[in-house]
């Protein structure tokens, strides 16, 4: 409840629409999206594939332009927010450069943003530590497992200390054990750094476990069908997933997903 008082808008979307014009007709990827993401929120986006989760994150990052409606990022247009390097983006694939070692990959944004050599080194070290990849600095991406590669890409997104993290199904391709582990670590990281996180997922338990706010979406046209505020305690051991409260929230998410499914 403390957050609601001191809330500062990080992402604000009003009547946001995006229509892709393709050769076989128009795709209404986002329809009338109204959403507020506040500072310190952990927002999960969940819904069947094709419901516009990726597209929404891409609009926030100005990788796509909305057809209609309004969106601000930190109170600015997405374009200015991008210029100001307001967010780190973690893609579904690790998207590491094959010819760079892990530490060189993590320093890529720092090089581009013109950080000094010393600062680069410091930040790379700190963030490698943070994601638990110490000792793998000199390894090349292909020498690491999928989970480790994805952690490297998270470290890279954290390296320049943006207050907002956009994560598009970062753990989608990983097995469940690795995924649980990374979920715990991500939650720790979020608590430690007090960042705002937008997190796309397919998995109900993942969404409930991580989030303060769950956005349930539905396809054709892509729209928001439910927004659930989670009141799970901030301290979340993995076994919280068996608690009554957890199951109730998961139940509501599932209902939201099913309803949108039946409508179609």
């Amino acid at each position, binding site marked *: 409840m403390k957050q609601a008082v001191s809330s500062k808008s990080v992402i604000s979307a009003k009547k946001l629409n995006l229509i892709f014009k393709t050769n076989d007709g128009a795709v209404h990827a986002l329809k009338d999206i109204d959403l507020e993401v506040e500072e310190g929120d952990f927002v999960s986006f969940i819904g069947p594939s094709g419901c516009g989760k990726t597209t929404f994150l*891409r609009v926030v*990052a*100005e*990788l796509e332009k909305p057809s209609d409606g309004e969106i601000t990022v930190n109170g600015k247009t997405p374009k200015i927010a*991008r*210029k100001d*390097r307001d*967010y*780190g*983006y973690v*893609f579904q*694939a690790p*998207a590491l*450069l*094959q*010819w*760079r*070692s892990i530490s060189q990959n993590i320093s*890529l*944004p720092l*090089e*581009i*943003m013109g950080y000094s050599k010393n600062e680069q080194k410091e930040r790379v070290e700190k963030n490698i530590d943070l994601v638990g990849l110490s000792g793998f600095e000199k390894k*090349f991406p*292909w020498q690491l497992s999928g989970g480790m590669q994805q952690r490297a890409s998270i470290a890279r997104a954290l390296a320049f200390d943006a207050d907002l993290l956009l994560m598009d199904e970062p753990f989608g391709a990983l097995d469940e054990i690795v995924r649980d582990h990374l979920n715990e670590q991500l939650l720790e990281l979020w608590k430690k750094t007090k960042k705002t996180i937008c997190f796309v997922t397919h998995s109900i338990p993942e969404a409930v476990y991580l989030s303060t706010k769950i956005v349930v979406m539905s396809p054709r046209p892509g729209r928001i069908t439910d927004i659930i505020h989670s009141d799970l305690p901030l301290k979340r051991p993995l076994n919280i997933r068996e608690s009554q409260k957890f199951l109730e929230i998961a139940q509501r998410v599932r209902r939201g997903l099913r309803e949108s499914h039946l409508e179609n």
Partner: protein
Amino acid sequence: MLFAIKNKVIPVLAVVSAIGFIWYGFTIFLNSPWQIQNYEKSSVEWSFVDLAKDTMAHERPILPAPHQILSEIWQTTVKKKVTSKRSLIYHSWVTLSSTLMGFFMGTLMGITLAIFIVENKAMDKSLMPWIITSQTIPILAIAPMIIVVLNAVGLSGLLPKAMISAYLSFFPITVGMVKGLRSPDPILIDLMKTYSSSRTKLFFSLRLPSSVSFLFTSMKIAIAISLVGAIVGELPTGAVAGLGARLLTGSYYGQTIQIWSALISAATLAALLVISVNIISQLTFKIMGMQR
């Protein structure tokens, strides 16, 4: 390691001995009409063994036997001073120097064109048709003109030949490099956008490193056709030195053994050049951490 060598050596030896066997067969077959005529003229008795022996000892055979070519190569490499006009090493060096010069010019030109094409939409539309057209003109038709025109402006010797090599070799480099510079995964381009990266940084951090493997593949093709270009460049000038010149004088005087030894030298040179590029590319990949 031993296993790998065994795995490579045996097939290679098998192919080489098969080619040798067929070659000797053709040597006897192609040179026998003249030999038989000769036997009949001087009405000597002859057996097949005589025929086989004699057809492999002609001074100007239609097809020389492999050992004749090898002995000619031995005579004109190891047994001759490299400064001698009859040394194959001397002639190979003449051709090699213009090959390398042309290759470097072509590579430089190819990379430059590729950068223009990738970085500039108008260039993409306007340059590519010309580049493709340039390669549809047979090199044999323009080689003499390049030589003559350059001679008229006072350029002769190495440069005109190198220009022909460059003319041939820039093409695969441009095509490969354009493909390479455009090869980065869209997700990586998006990543750079989220950093609000400048175009220059995008180029040097992402496009250029992504193009390296494409560049080396093109360079292997380019260096081989640079050699072809250098040899073709020696033909119309009546050059006195170079493998092309050896081919030309050989054919004036019906010196088939000389022609074949020049051909074998050219092939060996081409193989060595491609292998060198390959070694450099392996080293580069190793430095870039991309070998697996």
